[in-house]
């Protein structure tokens, strides 16, 4: 039933990449230090030299490097993104992860043999949308939006072939369809699609009100933490709001994605790659999560038993969800 399963792990820094590779990542994904990738944070990402070294290191250890250039090119300044594509190919990237249709077009024409993946930011959520990119541009793999149920993923994976499918299984959870969310742009002027950031730290502020801590994004209060309550990073879509007189986590509770229990099912329907979110996470976290998921995938590939308890423990003390993979979430 199972093709070769691939564990795709985040690398926010060169050190993080080494950690992920040594912990057993089959592939790591990373980006250049500019607005061409969707994790454009000050302390993250790779310069050109670091990227070449990272690819060499990964290849020595039998791992692949997927370079993400997955924001949308700025009008009048598309050269920055194209140069990124050229440099990523020259660095030896095993695949490029792209979202902008025109960048996909450029990459395919300028580098006919380069393997291309379609970023989750491209929001291809139907067999038809995938066929569009597969047939016109030879996309080899599509990262599926986190808006689909396992049943929908099964149908989609079957129809996408020979294009592979990759799904997120662990880490941060976008509640909105990725690549189609302007919430951060509306509140802060900084946009995931255009600048590669969401609810950026530069626009987050905290103030004390009595015994509680109030967190704002772009001046809008998104969360009020009571004394002793753990204060997570304030993201607009996981904030607490008032609607119809009720205060609630209207969009989503402050939870993260953990689809570990669905691994056998997802592999069973033909998903080949399993992605861990978190280029902004520390090395200790990456090491633990990657090792645990690698053991799980190895067990899946060889018909062994998955230690679900180990994987569940990864989110201990934190609430998690399988998100849209289960229909009732909707």
């Amino acid at each position, binding site marked *: 039933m199972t093709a070769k399963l691939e564990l795709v792990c985040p690398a926010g820094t060169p050190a993080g990449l080494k950690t992920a590779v040594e912990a057993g990542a089959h592939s790591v994904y990373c980006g250049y230090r500019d607005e061409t990738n969707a994790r454009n944070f000050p302390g993250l990402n790779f310069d050109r030299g670091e990227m070449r070294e990272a690819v060499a290191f990964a290849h020595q250890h039998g791992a692949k490097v997927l370079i993400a250039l997955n924001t949308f090119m700025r009008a009048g300044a598309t050269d920055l993104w194209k140069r990124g594509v050229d440099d990523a190919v020259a660095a030896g990237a095993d695949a490029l992860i792209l979202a902008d249709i025109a960048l996909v077009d450029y990459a395919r024409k300028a580098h006919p043999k380069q393997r291309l993946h379609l970023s989750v930011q*491209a929001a291809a959520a139907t067999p038809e949308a995938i066929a*569009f990119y597969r047939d016109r541009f030879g996309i080899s793999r599509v990262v599926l939006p986190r*808006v689909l149920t396992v049943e929908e993923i099964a149908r989609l994976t079957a129809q996408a072939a020979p294009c592979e499918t990759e799904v997120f299984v662990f880490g941060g959870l976008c509640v909105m369809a990725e690549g*189609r969310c302007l*919430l951060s742009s509306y509140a*802060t002027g900084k946009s995931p699609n255009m600048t590669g950031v969401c609810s950026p730290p530069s626009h987050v502020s905290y103030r004390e009100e009595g015994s509680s801590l109030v967190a704002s994004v772009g001046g809008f209060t998104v969360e009020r933490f009571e004394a002793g309550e753990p204060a997570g990073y304030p993201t607009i879509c996981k904030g607490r709001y008032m609607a119809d007189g009720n205060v609630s986590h209207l969009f989503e509770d402050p939870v993260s994605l953990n689809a570990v229990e669905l691994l056998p099912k997802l592999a069973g329907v033909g998903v080949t790659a399993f992605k861990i979110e978190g280029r902004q996470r520390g090395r200790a976290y990456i090491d633990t999560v990657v090792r645990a998921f690698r053991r799980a995938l190895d067990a899946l590939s060889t018909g062994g038993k998955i230690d679900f308890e180990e994987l569940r423990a990864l989110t201990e003390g934190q609430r998690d969800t399988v998100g849209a993979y289960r229909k009732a979430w909707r």
Partner: protein
Amino acid sequence: MTAARLSLTLGPVLYNWPVARWTDFYGRIADEAPLDRVCLGEVVCSKRKPFLDEVILDTVDRLERGGKEVVYSTLALPTSKREVRDIGDMIQAGYLIEANDMAAVQLLNGRPHIVGPFLNIYNEEALALHLKLGAGRVCLPPELPLESIQAMAAGNQAVEVFAFGRPPLALSARCYAARSHGMAKDACQFVCEGYDDGMEVTTVDGTPFLAVNGIQTLGYAVTAATQQIEALRQAGVVSLRLSPQSCDMVRVAQIFRALADGVTTPKEAHEALGVLPLPGPLSDGFLRGLPGCTAEVD
């Protein structure tokens, strides 16, 4: 100055209005509104679509008799087989289609169509690609600043800008109207019907922020591109999109027609909009490269 005439497009009603209200709305639009084209169809939630199916043919007929070009807008986030099949059916039926997802673009297979504000077209090259795929007019994503629009609109006679209405900000698999009523999407009882401009969302300290329309989230503030009208025209923009809210949209169309024709000033248009019962303050932050919620200043 020999500036081209700006055309006006009425976007689809995004909210779940009762069918009688929906048909009455388009009846008045057909008879009275100075619009060049009218987009209609269920864009947000396929569960609402059967109600419109019963009246859509008559409504199209009415609009065409009123001299409007009629465009059928497709679902923005199709995921099920049935939702995609519905898009294919509308293409087969021969409607002029507004594509709001890449599935529609694939199904159109090069036929002439227009593109709505839900596709990610952020630069001149992506725009050129879509024009080559058969798009004759493209409504750009509402977050694009004027600077980007200027780099995209020149010379192609194809760019439309989101000029009025609550800006669509996000789509999700989850229905927040249902969630806020303690229900799931599959058993939603159509609770979204009670909110003509979406359900208002405020911060816990009472600051208005967003509006929820089923699986869709919009800005609370109402986009109004009145101050930028001349800059947009100079940039080569050929069309303005007015997105229906519960206020008098015939009046809104008249205000933008007069503004586009130079009969009124941006200040007068701003003031004329200001006296309408709008669901939120006027804003033009996106066009100015600022947070989208930023208030319009005249």
